[in-house]
């Protein structure tokens, strides 16, 4: 059985989620040792247990060690079982992270699936819904996937209470993807989402975007989310649409952090992306590695890889007979090539 060192690289939940996705997609059983060994609270935590249980459900998998605090666990998928699923995620976990675990395997399943994911849809340290729907899924569709996601209710940390619906239709095989240039700028848009908080927070964030990025008033929008939201929340979404790709940068509003500071951090990230003249930002790079590996090929240019990305590459090499090469291109960019 394949053994994964859970403390390697990023050494956290990403190792497990990537391993689960690849295990389901390839039908390979695996064992994780030293699960999150170097973390302050080591072992399996609730959000990982949620992802594990979701993966076990769609893969009819047997698990060992699926308990809080486990340092070792075994996952043996039997067969993919597409269908209608509803997964409720507790506060600290994100619906996006659960989707990341089960979406790719379901793409390769023999029949369509329909997922309802409840919980946080805009959590710090996780891809928010808008990023998944606006940046990641379009690229998957370009690779042949038929997948649609709809936000029914936004759920912000800590209250959660959001809901997204995802429809997945099977594809025989994913097609390789080449993404080495952004192409001509098409459109840019800054949206400040505000739930159960003063609208002024959004105004102040957009004021920073206007002055620091020079975006125009018609590119700026405050979205006040209707009643029905479980709790308060705020995110700033900077969407940069180019000819070949759309990137979305997110800033998460936090209690005790000024709106200007939230906006400034997002603006910095957007400027780094724009200055590097690469099509793929750091978060999108994390997401693209697995689909490219499953497609058996592809290439993209991005900023220097994060620890998440290099960890994903390690896990991919364990499950799939593909080569992943990372080559420097210029001062602040790399080209990632996946070959069968």
């Amino acid at each position, binding site marked *: 059985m394949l053994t994964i060192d859970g403390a390697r690289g990023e050494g956290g939940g990403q190792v497990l989620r990537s391993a689960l996705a690849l295990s389901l997609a390839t039908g390979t059983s695996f064992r994780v040792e030293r699960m999150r060994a170097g973390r302050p609270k080591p072992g399996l*935590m609730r959000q990982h247990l949620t992802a594990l249980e979701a993966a076990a459900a769609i893969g009819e998998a047997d698990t060992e060690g699926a308990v809080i605090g486990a340092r070792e666990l075994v996952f043996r998928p039997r067969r993919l079982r597409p269908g209608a699923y509803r997964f409720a995620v507790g506060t600290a976990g994100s619906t996006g992270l659960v989707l990341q675990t089960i979406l790719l395997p379901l793409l390769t399943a023999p029949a369509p699936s329909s997922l309802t994911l409840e919980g946080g849809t805009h959590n710090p340290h996780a891809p928010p819904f808008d990023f998944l729907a606006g940046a990641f899924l379009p690229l998957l569709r370009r690779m042949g996937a038929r997948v649609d996601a709809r936000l029914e209710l936004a759920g912000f940390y*800590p209250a959660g209470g959001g809901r997204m619906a995802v429809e997945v239709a099977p594809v025989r095989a994913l097609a390789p993807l080449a993404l080495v240039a952004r192409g001509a700028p098409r459109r840019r848009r800054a949206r400040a989402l505000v739930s159960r908080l003063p609208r002024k927070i959004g105004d102040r964030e957009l004021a920073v975007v206007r002055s620091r990025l020079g975006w125009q008033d018609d590119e700026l929008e405050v979205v006040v989310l209707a009643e029905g939201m479980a709790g308060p929340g705020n995110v700033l979404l900077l969407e940069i649409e180019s000819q070949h790709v759309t990137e979305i940068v997110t800033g998460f509003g936090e209690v005790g952090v000024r709106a200007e500071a939230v906006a400034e951090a997002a603006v910095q990230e957007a400027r780094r992306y724009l200055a590097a003249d690469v099509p793929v930002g750091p978060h999108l790079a994390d997401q693209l590695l697995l689909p490219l590996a499953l497609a058996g090929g592809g290439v993209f240019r991005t900023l220097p890889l994060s620890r998440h990305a290099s960890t994903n590459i390690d896990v991919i090499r364990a499950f799939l007979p593909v080569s992943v090469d990372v080559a420097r291109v210029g001062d602040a960019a790399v080209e990632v090539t996946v070959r069968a």
Partner: protein
Amino acid sequence: MPDNVVIGMLGSTLDRGGPDRWRQWRPTVDLCRHEDLLVRRFELLSQPRFRRLAEEIVGDIRTVSPETEVRLHELALADPWDFEQVYGALHDFARGYPFRPEEESYLVHVTTGTHVVQICLFLLTESRDIPGRLLQASPPRRRSDGGPGSCTIIDLDLSKYDRLASRFQRQQREGLSFLKSGIDTRNAGFNRLIERIEQVAIASTAPLLLTGPTGAGKSQLARRVYELKKARRQVEGPFVEVNCATIRGDAAMSALFGHVRGAFTGALQPRPGLLRTADRGVLFLDEIGELGPDEQAMLLRALEDKIFLPVGSDREVRSDFQLIAGTNRDLGQAVRHGRFRDDLLARINLWTFHLPGLRERVEDLEPNLDYELDQWAARHGTRVTFNREARAAFLTFAASAEASWPANFRDFNAAVVRMATLAAGGRVTTAVVEDEIARLRALWAPATADEAEATLRRFLGPGRIETLDRFDRAQLAEVLRVCASAASLSAAGRTLFAVSRQRRTTANDADRLRKYLARFGLDWATVLDRRRAQ
């Protein structure tokens, strides 16, 4: 792994509702937000007047923790600061709750609710009415970080804590050593006895009965039991000691139970009596078999109801004391002869401990010698030591069959005190020991003729002696004297046939002795029986 079930009271102050509630730390909701604690069920106790808040909290828990099933229980508490009411309501809840400790792990949340609620939850957990562990939540270090703070699980089962367990062991060892007055005794039977007494003395307030021959240390042990209980804060009152043989007759009633002024001629002042003085302390009644029938009746009442009537008084008085009784008589026999009340005996011999005489504990002679020398040094400020030969000579004599130690440790103590007094320059020499051995022989010898009579009477009963030839009397008396202090029939046989057994290859001393005793209608069981009846 068992599922976690939290039992907790809704905190009407901390578990806030309203639009700003997500900016606050709310113990009940935030308990369900911990990444490393999965709460499968929450038994949320609440009062009817907080129903709206409770429902809002239940909804919030469902949002942040879909894994958690929440059950709301309403307790009608008119005054949540009233201990009796709160304890009663929570006790009812605990008694009615279908605990399944094999499948579920119960966590009792003690961060919310009034302090009285928290205390009652603690008490019910400590008493195992709720078979769970305590759960204490704390807010995040920065209120604004939106995190759930931290929580600590506290297991009240002290045996699960290694360092505490070793602390209790140490305390127990100290208790044992204390009961033995610090004497490092080696006799296994005696050490087991002390262990048991320590357990009982700490755990029980029922009467203790100490039996054993005179000088075996009953009185000293009773005082040590009291001091141990006092050190463990189990008694507040004094230690009151009386030898019942010294207060016979009319004075006994008054000495024990007190009298009022003018109760009898000469009763000019009222007297509280020893039982009253021992209130909340320990009363040691030595030679309890010597109490007269009236005193026995009154004592029984005092033990059962904790009340009695002083002489000449028509008002009962209360006294709550622990009784330690001492006796060297067979109280069972005294009951059969109508000299002791059987109901009183039943009341006091719940815990009976037989203290062996010195001859049954020859291994302990040496540690007791050291103890007596330490005591001497403590009293006189100078140390007395034995030279090696002197020490060996004394211990050999002390352990020999010749040394009968009729008053046991009292005799032994007197011998050591005499040698210490006569030790020139603090050194006990062979000469001093030889002097003392001669003195002891002389002390015990005059009694020998009478003692032979007494021994025979004790084992045969008075009528039988006259049927024996004088020729047999002397030999039988010596045989029985050895039997009186031997650990077993075989041990007695080895002592009696010590010379001839060296010449023989097979040693059937026990059999020879058994046959010899049988000639006089005696067997070992009878010998033991009579020994105890001394």
